[in-house]
């Protein structure tokens, strides 16, 4: 069934699109009969986890798939013209001209050896029929519009001379400069920091609205969708499982998958006493797609019919359409949220597990010819304490020094000055377990490694310990003989947790442990960490840019900016009543998966980029981006001091 948008005239209509990848082990049907339409000026969000086929679908529209991907069937009608049947040459007249594209990774999506001007000016000349000088003026105008400071000069910069946020702005300027009627944005903010993400999303929304262009926004982040979309298509295993207006999707989703996804996200109002809902299992292997509904193995309300017949999109209340045999989805069988486990043995005591005093880490860069040394002040005088059994969340944008702090805690890096006291042992969980495991080692060996290094017990004792650990992190013991590449992302992260726990550490440092995981798996890992925290009474240092997750799991939060802690206090207080303007800006930038709440929020994103840690300003490091900065802030550095009873903040105007 095709969902007919009633906003205005149809711009794009996709009918029964099928995309296949011919691999050695079989044909993968990445997009399996997708139909929808987009009206002129409409903003549509395509939501799904990795492997859901959302990117393959978007790339199929303009046949931008790399070999061995190919469009195997269906129609892509742009103003009634079928793009799927066009020759490559005819399609090139559409690409960039009628349909602009913004890609995920700004760091790699611009040609590194070409100046921005070269990459922008030629398409404008070709598509708008302008002369070189006029095209250049037009390019500068767009760069200015997307917020590139000093655009007339920066246009002659190379991409590598710009930050990630700046490059994504250039990508957007490129995509919009030829005045397309449709902009396809494939995860355009995933690689960016939350404050930059807020800027980019707001800008994309404003600029497409201004130009009257429609936008197709592909994302795995439901919160972002609530911020700007008119319509939402939720994809699972190559098919659209739910489609409809954004308000209805968030207020009363109808498909069990959409319902589960929304429940897995930690909420903003912060009920921390319940476990996160988690979707059991993994998405299906697209090479051997099961008959019937692809979601049924992970669905709480699946029936016999779901195993036999493939459900088609059917109308639901609120203008929605859902592909499910069970009317109402999960609401048919209400589940009560499970309470979160209480810390059993050890309550957060007075004893300190970690004590960090005046910690400083400077990296010195030296150049041979010039005398002036450049110093990166990665960590610049940090004082923190972690009590026994407590979880400290550290948040901040990339470059704020949070990962350097983690490395210092583990002793992987020598501090320039200051002290770190750790009672007991510290262990680490990395963001990407795959690259931190030896790919030629079996899982059992990986978990046993720290034990073997420390000559813990004999071989039999170690094997028993490994089995014990595997059970603790909820991993199937049959996985012990496998290699890391044979596990899913969530399973690998469980292995990483098991390895970190092997030597009974007193504190585990987790650096972005969930950011490489899909939403449905993320909740599994967060629940696991929360359980371990309650059961084992170990302390955690949880480093993340995902504020909602940190709020859910941490007892106390430290907000870092350019190597310094600018705010510190109990998690609820920091979130509900932030004292420092930077904390407030960070929280405002986090998208909330609720269109009503989103509409009511101040959507004035924080301006500018993080300053370079090479030359820090004299006064408050945040002054350049702060809405309330005064001369005092620019000359005198505020110190971290108590505000209210429990919070500390470094700001002259905290009250």
């Amino acid at each position, binding site marked *: 069934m095709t969902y007919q948008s009633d906003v205005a005239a149809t711009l794009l209509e996709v009918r029964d699109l099928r995309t296949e990848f011919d691999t050695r082990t079989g044909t993968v049907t990445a997009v399996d009969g997708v139909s929808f339409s987009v009206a002129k000026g409409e903003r549509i969000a395509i939501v799904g986890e990795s492997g859901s086929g959302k990117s393959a679908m978007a790339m199929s529209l*303009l046949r*931008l798939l*790399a*070999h*061995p991907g190919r469009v195997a069937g269906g129609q892509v009608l742009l103003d009634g013209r079928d793009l799927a049947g066009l020759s*490559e*040459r005819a399609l*090139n*007249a*559409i*690409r*960039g*001209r009628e349909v*602009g*594209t913004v*890609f*995920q*990774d700004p760091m*790699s*999506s*611009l*040609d*590194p*050896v*070409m100046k921005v001007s070269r990459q922008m000016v030629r*398409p404008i000349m*070709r*598509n708008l029929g302008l002369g070189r000088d006029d095209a250049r003026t037009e390019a500068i105008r767009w760069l200015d519009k997307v917020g590139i400071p000093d655009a007339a000069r920066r246009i002659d910069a*190379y991409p*590598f001379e710009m930050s990630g946020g700046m490059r994504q702005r250039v*990508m957007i300027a*490129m995509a919009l400069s030829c005045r397309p009627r449709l902009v396809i944005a494939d995860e355009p903010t995933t690689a960016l920091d939350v404050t930059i993400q807020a800027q980019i999303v707001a800008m994309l929304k404003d600029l497409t609205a201004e130009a009257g262009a429609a936008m197709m926004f592909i994302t795995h982040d439901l919160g972002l969708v609530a911020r700007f979309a008119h319509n939402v298509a939720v994809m699972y295993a190559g098919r659209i499982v739910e489609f409809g207006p954004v308000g209805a999707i968030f207020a009363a989703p109808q498909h069990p998958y959409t319902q589960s996804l929304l429940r897995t996200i930690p909420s903003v109002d912060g009920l921390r006493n319940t476990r996160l809902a988690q979707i059991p299992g993994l998405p299906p292997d697209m090479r051997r797609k099961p008959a019937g509904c692809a979601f049924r193995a992970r669905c709480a309300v699946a029936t016999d019919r779901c195993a036999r017949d493939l459900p088609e999109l059917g109308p639901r209340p609120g203008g929605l359409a859902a592909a499910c045999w069970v009317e109402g989805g999960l609401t048919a069988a209400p589940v009560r949220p499970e309470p979160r486990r209480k810390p059993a043995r050890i309550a957060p005591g007075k004893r300190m597990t970690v004590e960090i005093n005046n910690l400083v880490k400077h990296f010195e860069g030296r150049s*041979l*010819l010039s005398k002036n040394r450049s110093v990166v002040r990665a960590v610049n005088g940090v004082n923190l304490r972690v009590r026994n059994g407590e979880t400290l969340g550290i948040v901040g944008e990339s470059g704020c020094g949070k990962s350097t702090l983690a490395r210092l805690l583990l002793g992987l890096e020598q501090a320039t000055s200051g002290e770190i006291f750790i009672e007991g042992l510290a262990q680490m969980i990395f963001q990407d377990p795959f690259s931190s495991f030896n790919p030629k080692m079996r899982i059992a060996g990986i978990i046993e490694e720290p034990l073997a290094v420390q000559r813990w017990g004999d071989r039999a004792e170690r094997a028993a310990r490994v089995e014990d650990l595997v059970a603790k992190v909820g991993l199937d013991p049959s996985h012990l003989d496998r290699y890391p590449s044979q596990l899913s992302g969530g399973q690998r992260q469980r292995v990483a947790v098991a390895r970190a726990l092997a030597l009974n550490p007193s504190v585990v440092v987790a650096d972005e442990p969930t950011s490489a995981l899909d939403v449905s798996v993320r909740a599994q890992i967060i629940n696991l960490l929360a359980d371990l925290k309650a059961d084992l009474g170990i302390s955690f240092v949880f480093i993340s840019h995902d504020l909602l997750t940190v709020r859910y799991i941490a007892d106390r939060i430290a907000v870092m900016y350019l190597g310094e802690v600018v705010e510190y206090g109990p998690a609820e207080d920091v979130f509900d009543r932030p004292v420092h303007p930077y904390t407030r800006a960070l929280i405002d930038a986090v998208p909330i998966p609720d269109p009503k709440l989103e509409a009511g929020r101040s959507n004035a994103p924080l301006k500018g980029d993080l300053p370079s840690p090479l030359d820090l300003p004299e006064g408050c490091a945040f002054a350049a981006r702060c809405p309330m900065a005064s001369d005092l802030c620019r000359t005198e550095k505020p110190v971290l001091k108590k505000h209210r009873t429990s919070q500390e903040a470094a700001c002259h105007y905290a009250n």
Partner: protein
Amino acid sequence: MLDYALKKSVQLVVTIFGVVTLVFFTLRLIPGDAASAMAGDTMSGEALELLREQMGLNEPILAQYAAYLRDLVTLDLGQTITTRLPVAEMIGKAIPVTLSIAVLTIVLTVIISIPLGTVAAYMAHKGRARLDNLLTGFAMIVDLMPSFWTALVFLLLFSLTLGWFPASGMVSLDDPAVFLSRIALPVLVLSVTQIATMARITRTSVLEILSEDYVRTARAMGWSEFRVLFRHALKNAALPIATVIGLSFGNLLNGTVIVEFIFTIPGIGNLLINGINSRDYQLVQTLIVFYALLFVTINFITDIVYRALDPRVTF
């Protein structure tokens, strides 16, 4: 850029000085000296001693070294021991011949192998691997053939059987047509190996670049496949290719020694072989320094080109 070139030139001078020093002392370590080589077996002990005195071989080694450096800087390269001709003049005559062969080979290689490798990469990227397999097969066969063997086969086929090119005869720059016909076969022999290597390197580099995100961006902007391939992909692939061209110049110089000998071409390579055979210290020593100079200069040029191609390269 100028800074960079300047800094690199300083390194260049230091390297050359090192080579000169090494060559000087290594040759002095070999048993027997220039005087006894010159004298042969017949000269009496006294006469030999006199010769040593004349040649300054009785001076302390450091004084000899200083004198040698002084001569080198003033380009006073002395005379060959066997023919008593000025070394500078002999090398001066041989250089244009060898360089012509080398440069022509490089040009021919680049003209053929880069488009070939690029197209092969494109086909492989699109999943049509026939040209790619052909290229790999060709490269493997060529790699198995030593260049002296190829040279002999070419000589047999093109000169003796088909009679397209002369197998021997005067080599003079005065008559370009004759000169070209004389160096054509050496250039072909050297090119075959070079083309095989270079086409494969090009193919690998371009293939890797073709799956980069910015290539997809270029496609999404509506550029034709031709432009995507030659403007975006090849330009980025040019970096590793330039490095390989620079490195392969070394191989090429090795190759010239062999082909010059086989085709009796009076280039640097032949000069070197003759010098070694007649134990002509003066000549060999200078030639080694010259080769070193050539290598270092090529590396220098590669570095500069690399930097010009890739704005990200810093120092």
